[in-house]
């Protein structure tokens, strides 16, 4: 296990390095942010001074080296728009996205697995068939459109729920969370449901496929012949055996939802990292864009690590680390 972790660590550093290079070059190619930010009254001399102060006149490799030096110390540059460290800005907004992403994945798992089980166990029932049809809609309809429709129907027409924003927050362990207040819950329902549709559809289909695959197998027949209760057969024997692909997908989806909840956060004006990244891209706030993409890579690396460790918990046949020939 230790060797496995150390190896993983080295791989992660390599991935981060490559990623930082790609991101840097990409952002550099978009354009000079100063043109966008600088005041119209600035003289050409002032423009050059600002470019020089922000280090934007140095060649690409010099800027990259400077960036790496700072990155090793944990400083990823200052946001151009807010003038606070980019990393601090991202971490300030992270709890909101974390909350939204967790809520979305929770909905996807809590509803997805039972629905998928039902669709797998009774595939020809009306409910089973409508679950499958619904799941197709879930991953093909664009999030943007669904989000706006939900706002129009539930918030504007019926007025049951707020149209946007995050509700009242309460501080726990230094993090602000909003799901502990009624106001917060009202605000989080629509964006969480909107964000959960895609992962929900995936989990339903995966679970159903897994169930269909596992049910006819010998050991299930044996368990039933042994006289085990149906509930135990399904919940223990079937479920545990289909969990590996589901855990993988849920893990990846959690990462995706955490890093790229941009559309949902924009539509619902949810003050999270996704909205931060789209605003930063629009304003060419380079340090934030670079820092954010690196944080995203880190998130995915961590999630993959957790998923791999979970494998060994779920399936005792899986051994982490080197395979002995």
């Amino acid at each position, binding site marked *: 296990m230790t060797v496995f972790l150390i190896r993983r660590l080295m791989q992660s550093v390599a991935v981060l390095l490559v990623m930082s290079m790609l991101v840097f070059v990409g952002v550099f190619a978009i354009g000079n942010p*100063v043109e966008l930010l600088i005041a119209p009254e600035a003289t*050409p001399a*002032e423009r050059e001074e600002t470019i020089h102060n922000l280090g934007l006149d140095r060649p690409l490799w010099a800027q990259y080296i400077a960036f790496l030096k700072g990155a090793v110390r944990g400083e990823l540059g200052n946001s151009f728009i807010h*003038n*606070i460290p980019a990393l601090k800005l991202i971490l300030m907004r992270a709890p909101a996205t974390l909350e939204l992403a967790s809520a979305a994945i929770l909905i996807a798992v809590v509803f997805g697995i039972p629905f998928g089980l039902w669709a797998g166990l009774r595939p020809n029932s009306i409910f089973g068939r409508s679950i499958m049809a619904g799941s197709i809609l879930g991953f093909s309809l664009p999030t943007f459109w669904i989000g706006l429709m939900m706002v129009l129907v539930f918030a504007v027409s019926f007025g049951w729920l707020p*149209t946007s924003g995050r509700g009242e927050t309460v501080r726990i362990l230094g993090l602000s969370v909003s799901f502990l207040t009624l106001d917060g819950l009202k605000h989080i329902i629509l964006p969480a449901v909107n964000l959960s549709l895609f992962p929900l559809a995936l989990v339903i289909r995966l679970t159903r496929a897994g169930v269909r695959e596992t049910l006819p197998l010998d050991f299930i027949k044996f368990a039933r012949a042994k006289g085990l209760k149906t509930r135990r057969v399904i919940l223990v024997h079937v479920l545990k055996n289909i969990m590996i692909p589901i855990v993988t997908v849920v893990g990846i989806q959690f990462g995706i939802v955490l890093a790229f909840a941009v559309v949902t956060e924009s539509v*619902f*004006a949810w003050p999270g990292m996704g909205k931060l990244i789209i*605003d930063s891209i*629009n304003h060419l706030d380079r340090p934030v864009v670079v820092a954010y993409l690196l944080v995203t890579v880190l998130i995915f690396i961590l999630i993959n690590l957790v998923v791999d460790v979970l494998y060994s918990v779920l399936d005792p046949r899986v051994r982490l680390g080197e395979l002995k020939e």
Partner: protein
Amino acid sequence: MIKRFCRIGLVILGVALLAQSALAAEVKIGVRAEPSIDPHFLYLATNVAYSKHMFGRLVSRDQNSRKIPDLAVSWKALDDVTWEFKLRKGVKFHDGSEFTAEDVVFSINRIPKVPNNPASYHSNTRSIVSMEIVDPYTVILKTDKPNPVLPVQVHNAAIISKKAAEGASTADFNSGKAAIGTGPFKFVEFVPGDHLTLERFDDYWGEKPVWDRVTFKIISNDAARVAALLGGDVDMIDFVPPTEVAHLVKNKNINVFKRPSDRVIFFVCDNIRDQSPFVTGKDGKPLDKNPLKDVRVRRALTLAINRDVICSRVMEGLAAPASQSIPEGWFSYNPEIKVPKYDPEGAKKLLAEAGYPNGFGLTVHGPNDRYVNDGKICQAVAQMLARIGLDVKVETMPKTVYFPKMAPPNNNFSFFMLGWGNSTTGEATHGFMAIFHSYSKGKGAGSYNGGYSNPEFDRIAEEAVKIVDDQKREKALQAAMAFLMNDQGMIPLHTQFTIAATKKGLVYTPSADESTLAYNLKPVK
């Protein structure tokens, strides 16, 4: 029994809600732009608007962008380079301390020193070379050369408290520690990306705002912002997208407020180069002579554009045709210059006269996410130019890519769109010096000059903007504008409108400089 219970319950609820609203006059405004609490960081028109709630300045402006006294009760030019400002007495900061000339000097000194500032406010105070405190309520500012628009420029120099902000960083402002000003509102809370909350400052020297508490909810997505107003989550929104205006006007629960802004949309031709990158012959090959250098060709282009159609169809009635680079009625507007009439036949004749009876090839360039309907306007203009015989292509791009390409020294385009907000100087001065004056690093001019150059105009403009006497300057600026329009230095299109919307029962007075100001929002009596 249950029915009666429900009815009583509803009445109690209704009374409770009414009582709630009587206790505290609170208002929520859905805004597009993110604020910066530090009034000296990141010079953007939207940041200036936010700072006006909390911080005062020497001279402010009314909704028509004309000067009004704020922390300075009067000002006059003692000579061409010396200005005396008499300050208001008895003004208190949010922490109770007195406002004096010390705060003015401290603020102006801090402006160029804010670290890591991609858009410094210094361009507004650059001309000030020395400041002298005559007494606690009189300040003398000396400029390096005659600067008649200094009283307008100080509008952007917010006055902060020397006591509270000495040595403060931008983060101290964002947390509220240093955000002490003389404005009608006090800072309460700022969550970046989410909201900014202010409350009324009861010791404000001027007209106290109606609201006890104002919350700006930052909703940058246009559709989400409109939905928030329709759903009742906010009481007012700014920057209403023009496509929504038609159905918001019909909605009985919404009031829409619009007026011409300070922004004129126009096109500029490249008349500097002999071979312009996006001008070709009808066969697509480069021409040996640049047709845009001929004033007859430029005049033909302006006659080919049907401004009424653009304003009524493309802008859906939310624009007014423009004849020059500043909106009608502004200081230094030249009433002699009329909006060019739509005359495609006249345009074709001029083209033939200039030697292009069959036209030539041209690419129209513009941004697609900066001005209202910018992409659509480019397409409409291109179609109109095609009708007089030109072979036109249209290329629009995001502002982040467009402006660096357009600006000198790149000057990548031949025929391109620009929009200019004129509130910075309140007159034609700034437009002249930044856009139409030739690019000159030494003189600090032409930072936005994408392709027009005429040394004669440079001379006339330089002379005009120096004149400190208002009346003489107005005449000189009008003469410069006449010269510019005769030479077709720009092809004016229209002045775009600024549009805000509120829920029923509220009335908002929009400003020409497109600022969102909570103290201009009032309940209907």
